[in-house]
């Protein structure tokens, strides 16, 4: 099991992750900036406090599985996997370089990645297969998958959802990165996703909605899963695309915009200030 961490430690990690994401994308000259920043708190909590994984033994059969179904925000996943020790952090500098396995969507050539994703709507079916196998083998493994909200227009997700509830996969936890933006604009103007919770409830999930950029709220909701015996769990994580940097937040143009060196400097400065605030509040809480 993961070593318990203070919320402030996790908040500190999220800021570090955001710095790494932005720096890596700027270095690579490509990447999905907005989506990586919206989902990184979810990955932080999953990998540091929720999931049973072992970077020293990545194919341990009883491990929990994470599938990055939304695929394109791979920079967040690489950053967290590097921090967990699945591979040396220097590999992040090879992102997008000729011959590197650290490509723009996850592949199993990168230690810690469970499934190649990037074409949308694929991760949930694979997660269902893994969850059925764990049940058949009587293993305690749980399967987590993160989907984007724009991704939900893919019909295969609803095929997979039918089977998740039919097979009563209460060892499956699906998270929606509900940042309400996709590449063209607001999800509700491109292809409406609401009523989101009702749709998934109708397909047999037990659904919770949470602030997906709030560490304490995420810890709390994951601790409650499974939300109902015999049902797959689904978390609608309300997030802000580009979270953590004022001029990237909720800005459709930042879907895969790469920060210039000037923009990177401002972003890193904002994140340094946020880091200072976390440290100050931590100091205040411990002296109290």
């Amino acid at each position, binding site marked *: 099991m993961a070593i318990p961490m203070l919320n402030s430690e996790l908040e500190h990690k999220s800021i570090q992750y955001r710095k790494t994401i932005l720096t890596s994308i700027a270095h690579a000259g490509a990447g999905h900036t907005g989506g990586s920043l919206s989902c990184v708190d979810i990955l932080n909590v999953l990998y540091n406090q929720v999931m049973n994984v072992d970077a020293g033994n990545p194919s341990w059969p009883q491990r929990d599985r994470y599938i990055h179904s939304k695929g394109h925000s791979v920079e967040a996943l690489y950053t967290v996997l590097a921090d967990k020790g699945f591979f040396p952090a220097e590999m992040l500098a090879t992102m997008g370089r000729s011959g590197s396995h650290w490509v723009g969507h996850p592949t199993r050539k990168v230690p810690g990645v469970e499934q190649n994703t990037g074409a949308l709507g694929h991760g949930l*079916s*694979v997660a269902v297969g893994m969850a059925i196998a764990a049940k*058949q083998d009587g293993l305690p493994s749980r399967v987590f998958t993160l989907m984007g909200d724009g991704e939900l227009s893919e*019909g*295969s997700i609803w*095929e997979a959802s039918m*089977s998740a509830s039919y097979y009563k996969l209460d060892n499956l936890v699906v998270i929606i990165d509900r940042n309400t933006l996709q590449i063209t604009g607001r999800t509700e103007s491109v292809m409406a996703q609401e009523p989101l919770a009702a749709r998934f409830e109708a397909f047999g999930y037990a659904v919770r909605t949470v602030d997906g950029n709030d560490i304490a709220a995420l810890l709390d909701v994951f601790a409650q899963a499974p939300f109902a015996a015999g049902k797959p769990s689904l978390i609608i994580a309300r997030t802000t695309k580009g979270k953590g940097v004022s001029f990237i937040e909720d800005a459709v143009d930042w879907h895969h915009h790469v920060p210039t060196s000037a923009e990177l400097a401002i972003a890193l400065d904002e994140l340094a200030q946020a880091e200072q605030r976390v440290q100050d509040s931590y100091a205040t809480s411990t002296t109290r």
Partner: protein
Amino acid sequence: MQPLQLGSPNQQVFSDTLLAMAEESRNLLVVTSDSRGSGRLVAFGKRLPDQIVEVGIAEQNLVGVAAGLAAAGKCVYAVSPACFLTARSLEQIKNDVAYSDHPVKLIGISAGVSYGALGTTHHSLHDFAVLQAINNIDIVAPADNFETRRCAGVRHAPQTTYIRLGKKAMHRLHTPDTPFAIGRAIPVRQGSDVAFLATGETVETAVQAADALAERGVSAAVLSIHSIRPFDEEAVLKMAKQVQAIVTVEEHSVLGGLGSRVASLLLQAGVTPRLRIVGIPDEYTWTGSQQDILNTMASRRRVGGDGGRLA
């Protein structure tokens, strides 16, 4: 020549073999998309209900779930009509299985024009073409019951494998001690004038054509090319150097299948016997039974001494 003896449909032999293997290994799972009737898996489902995973009519989910099961260490056979499996779920085959390197066995049933009068929606004349363009997937089309039994036994192979099966009863072409390995063509008839390079259910037709030619004094060889990938380049080149003419035969589009593969190999190797590619021409599908379609389509291309019919 002795007349060929009639055996069982390859799909039946495959499912019988699968059941026997599954009874020995609880780790073997079959995934179906409301396809157990066509796949002759009703008996399997009754006998081993815990080893069959049903996803309903949802071929994309079929392949994705199969990938997840294989990722978790299961030995997985995903069984669905070839027409849907290799088109509706092509992206899942490409990404979830082949690119992700999971050793799923994809079983395309009632392949080619097996479904006959059901029409183009139910025909798979594209599967060799699309799967050859996807890296990391073996493509196998057994000719008779013997080859089918041996193909079914690839469960421990680390490769993703597509196995293409038909539904009609097939004639016996090999003896039980015939050497078999994926990627190695099997000589069925020896000959020095012309060679038929055939795959899947068309091998027996090629054998019948070769035997008819022999009666007319033409020496015709037949190779069963059960593996489109890995492709036995050595056997094909050797044969092409021995004969005056090559005829490739397949129940697949003449574009992108066995014939195209052979032509590409021979031209690049500088070995150029006369070549005729026999398959389904690039035109609106003829209506009728499997045999009607093969007869009509093949009549566009003379293949033997039997009045120009493929079968």
